[in-house]
């Protein structure tokens, strides 16, 4: 405990690079959990992670059923039509029981909590996305350098998801 008091975490900066629902939720729960503890939090959405703030995509994120050994089903079954949708539906049902909100509501919760959200400029250019395509309450578009600048100061931690 004394060690924790000596150098507390003051700010968590998360980089979300994937759009499978388990990664998006891991990122959101960590960011929200930090705010709940009085720790500052920020998210940098890059590459496929941009789907989590893409207005047209964010409600339709899926759990990966192929190439995911934790599903404990044969890969060939995971690739069957409808499998991802089914697994996603089951997962969402379980999450709802735990009071974990859907992606759009979670974004609102994060905004309300004071979590800052940034879109990666390069990834936006690559996917031909404009700011109007993104969730309205993001804090802006940043380069990698711009995001690193935000990590300045003692007690900042960067995490890649």
């Amino acid at each position, binding site marked *: 405990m004394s060690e924790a008091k000596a150098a507390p975490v003051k700010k968590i900066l998360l980089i979300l690079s994937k759009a499978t629902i388990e990664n998006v939720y891991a990122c959101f729960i960590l960011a929200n959990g930090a705010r709940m503890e*009085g720790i500052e939090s920020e998210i940098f959405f890059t590459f496929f992670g941009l789907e989590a703030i893409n207005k047209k995509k964010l409600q339709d994120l899926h759990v990966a059923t192929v190439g995911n050994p934790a599903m404990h089903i044969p890969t060939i079954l995971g690739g069957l039509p409808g499998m991802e949708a089914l697994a996603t539906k089951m997962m969402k049902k379980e999450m709802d029981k735990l009071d974990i909100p859907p992606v759009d509501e979670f974004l609102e919760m994060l905004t309300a909590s004071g979590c800052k959200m940034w879109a990666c400029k390069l990834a936006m250019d690559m996917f031909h996305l404009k700011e109007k395509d993104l969730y309205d309450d993001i804090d802006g578009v940043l380069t990698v350098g711009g995001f690193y600048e935000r990590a300045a100061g003692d007690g900042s931690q960067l995490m890649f998801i």
Partner: protein
Amino acid sequence: MTIAGQEVSVNAEGYLTDLNQWTKEISLEIAQQEEVTMTEKGWEVIAWIQEQYRNEIPLTIRKVGKSGVTDIKEFYALFPNGPLKKASKIAGIPKPVSCI
């Protein structure tokens, strides 16, 4: 432990272990220690939190947001730097175990 001149039982982290011992005076002193300034709205939230506890409903930020008493942004402003934990401590209920 004595808070606001009253003998109360608390756990190692200073959370009241018996809500029946809670008084407004005690919670004011806890609020001061937690650097929270209590407002009329803050008391409304505390009353709502105590009601949830009595009804055995686990507390989450999401539920607070849907309480009709306050919204999430205001909740963070009312109880800065860890709203759920601080509000629970002031309300005299156990530390919440939720990550949401």
